[in-house]
C-alpha cells in the first residue's frame, strides 16, 4: 500500500497525483487556522531537504466544512493528519471525524509549542473515536521503541514512522540560517537509514501496522521499509522531484520484490527480522562475511 507523506501533496491541486496512491493523507490539521512560518521555508542540502512550513492549514472548522467534502470527491480512502497543542485539542478534532483513518502528528519540528506526551494524546483520542488511529513519531527520541509501545498501550492501531528530524543549513555568503525560522525539518535521502531503524525497532517492539517513510524515492527503498516491518509506505520529498513517483515506485517495488523471490511486496514484510535463511548462506554472501567469525 502506497501513500503520500502528510504535507507533501495537495490532492485538490493535483488530483491525478493523489489518485496514483492507495489513499490520500492530508496535511496536518490544527484546531485553529495557521498561516505557517515566514519564508524562506525550504532549503535544499546536499543529501536532503529542510522545511519550516509550520503547519500552514485552514484550521479544523474550515477543513471539516470545505476541504474534507472536496477530498471525498477523489474517491480515495482519506487519512486525516491531526495536530494540536494539547491532548484535548487532538481529541476534539478526532471526535469530529468519521469515515477516515486518523494519523496523529505527534512530532512536528516546526512549531514551538511542545505537545504533551505521545501516549497521553493517543489515549485522549482513543477515548473519543473508534476510527483507526496511527501515531506518527519523530526519530528524535532516545528510544523510539519505548514511545511506540506506550502509544500501543494507549490504544494506537498503527504507527507512522518517521517524521522529519531537526536540521539547519547556512547561507553560503552570510553564514546565517537559510530558513527564516532558523532550523527546520530534515527529510529526503539522508533520512532513509534513520527511518529504516525506527521501523525495524518499532515493528519488533509492537508488531503494529506501520506506515514507513523517510527518503523513499525508489521501489527498492519501499521494499526495504517493508522488510524492516512496514505494512505500507509513504512518499514525501521524492514527490517534489517527480510527481510521477507513486507510479514509478509502485512498479519498481513489484519488480524488486519479484527479483528477490517474493510473490507480493508485502510477503517481504518483516523479513529483515527472519533468522539467517539458507538463501543467505549462498556463496556470494559467504565470500564477504568477515574472516574468523566462527572460531
Amino acid at each position, binding site marked *: 500500500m502506497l501513500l503520500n507523506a502528510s504535507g507533501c501533496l495537495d490532492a485538490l491541486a493535483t488530483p491525478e497525483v493523489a489518485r496514483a496512491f492507495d489513499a490520500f493523507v492530508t496535511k496536518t490539521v490544527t484546531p485553529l487556522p495557521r498561516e505557517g512560518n515566514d519564508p524562506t*521555508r525550504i532549503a535544499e*542540502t546536499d543529501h536532503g531537504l529542510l*522545511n519550516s512550513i509550520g503547519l500552514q492549514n485552514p484550521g479544523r472548522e474550515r477543513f471539516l466544512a470545505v476541504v474534507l467534502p472536496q477530498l471525498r470527491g477523489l474517491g480515495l480512502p482519506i487519512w486525516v493528519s491531526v495536530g494540536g497543542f494539547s491532548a484535548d485539542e487532538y481529541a476534539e478534532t478526532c471526535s469530529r471525524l468519521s469515515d477516515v483513518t486518523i494519523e496523529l502528528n505527534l512530532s512536528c519540528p516546526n512549531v514551538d509549542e511542545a505537545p504533551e506526551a505521545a501516549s497521553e494524546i493517543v489515549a485522549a483520542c482513543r477515548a473519543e473515536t473508534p476510527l483507526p488511529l496511527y501515531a506518527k513519531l519523530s526519530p528524535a527520541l532516545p528510544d523510539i521503541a519505548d514511545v511506540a509501545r506506550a502509544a500501543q498501550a494507549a490504544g494506537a492501531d498503527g504507527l507512522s514512522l518517521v517524521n522529519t528530524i531537526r536540521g539547519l543549513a547556512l547561507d553560503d555568503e552570510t553564514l546565517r540560517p537559510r530558513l527564516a525560522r532558523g532550523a527546520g525539518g530534515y527529510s529526503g535521502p539522508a533520512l532513509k537509514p534513520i527511518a529504516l531503524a525506527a521501523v525495524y525497532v518499532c515493528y519488533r517492539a509492537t508488531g503494529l501496522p506501520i506506515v514507513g517513510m523517510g527518503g523513499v524515492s525508489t521501489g527498492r527503498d519501499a521494499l526495504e521499509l517493508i522488510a524492516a516491518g512496514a505494512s505500507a509506505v509513504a512518499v514525501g520529498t521524492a*514527490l517534489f522531484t517527480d510527481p510521477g513517483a507513486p507510479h514509478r515506485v509502485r512498479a519498481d517495488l513489484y519488480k524488486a520484490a519479484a527479483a528477490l523471490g517474493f510473490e507480493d511486496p508485502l510477503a517481504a514484510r518483516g523479513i529483515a527480522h527472519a533468522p539467517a535463511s539458507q538463501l543467505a548462506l549462498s556463496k556470494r554472501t559467504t565470500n564477504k562475511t568477515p574472516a574468523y567469525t566462527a572460531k
Partner: protein
Amino acid sequence: MLSRGRHSVLANEPVGPYRLLRVERGRAEPGIPGQFFMLEAPGRVLPRPMSLCLAPPGELDFLFEPVGRGTRALAALEAGDELAILGPLGNGFRLDVDRPLLVGGGIGMAPLPYLSEKLGGPPAVLGFRTAHHAEAAALLPGSEVAVEPGLVTELLPAGHDVLACGPERMLQAVGALFPGAQLAWEAPMACGYGACYGCAVDLDGTYKRLCVEGPVLEAAACS
C-alpha cells in the same frame, strides 16, 4: 495535468555570463510565456524552476544564471546529456493587452523573448549590472538597454501595459509606477506544483503559494 519527461540536451551555450540551455522538446508543451518548468539539476535533491526563454520548433530553451549548486549543475550539462523536465507550470502572462511593454532586469529577462514572440515583438526595456550581462539583450533584438548605474525605471514611457520580470526591487518600483503591470516573481520552490507550501508569498496578508497563484501577478494584487 502534470507532464514530466526526459529530454536530450541539444546545446548549452554561454550568453554573456548566462547560459542558454537548449533541450529537445519531445512531447512537452511550451505553455504560455511566464509559465515555468522544473528542471532536474543533476546530483541535487530538488529540481530548479526556470522560465521558458525561447520555443523554436522542436526545442525548449532556458536562459539561466549559474548562481548556486543547482544552476552550476545545469551549467555543466553537455549536448547529449538527458534531464527530466516538469511543466509548463503556474500562471503565465495575460496576452490580451493593448499596448504591451516588456521590462526585464538581469536574468529576469529570461521569459521575455518567448513572450515577445507571442506578442508580435512589442517594445522592450532591459536593465543589466554590466555590459557583459547586457550581451543577453541579443536574445531580444530591438530592446532598449540600461546598464547600471542606469535603471530601467528611468526609461519607461507612460501609457503602456507593462509585463515585467526581474529582481524584487525592480518589480516593486515598476509596480509602483504601473499599478496594472503584470509582474513575474520568484520564490524558492521545492515542487513547483502546489504540493509543498514552500513558495509562500504574502498576498493581501496571507501566505499563498507563488507556484499556484503566480508566478505572474498583477501589481495591484501585491501591495
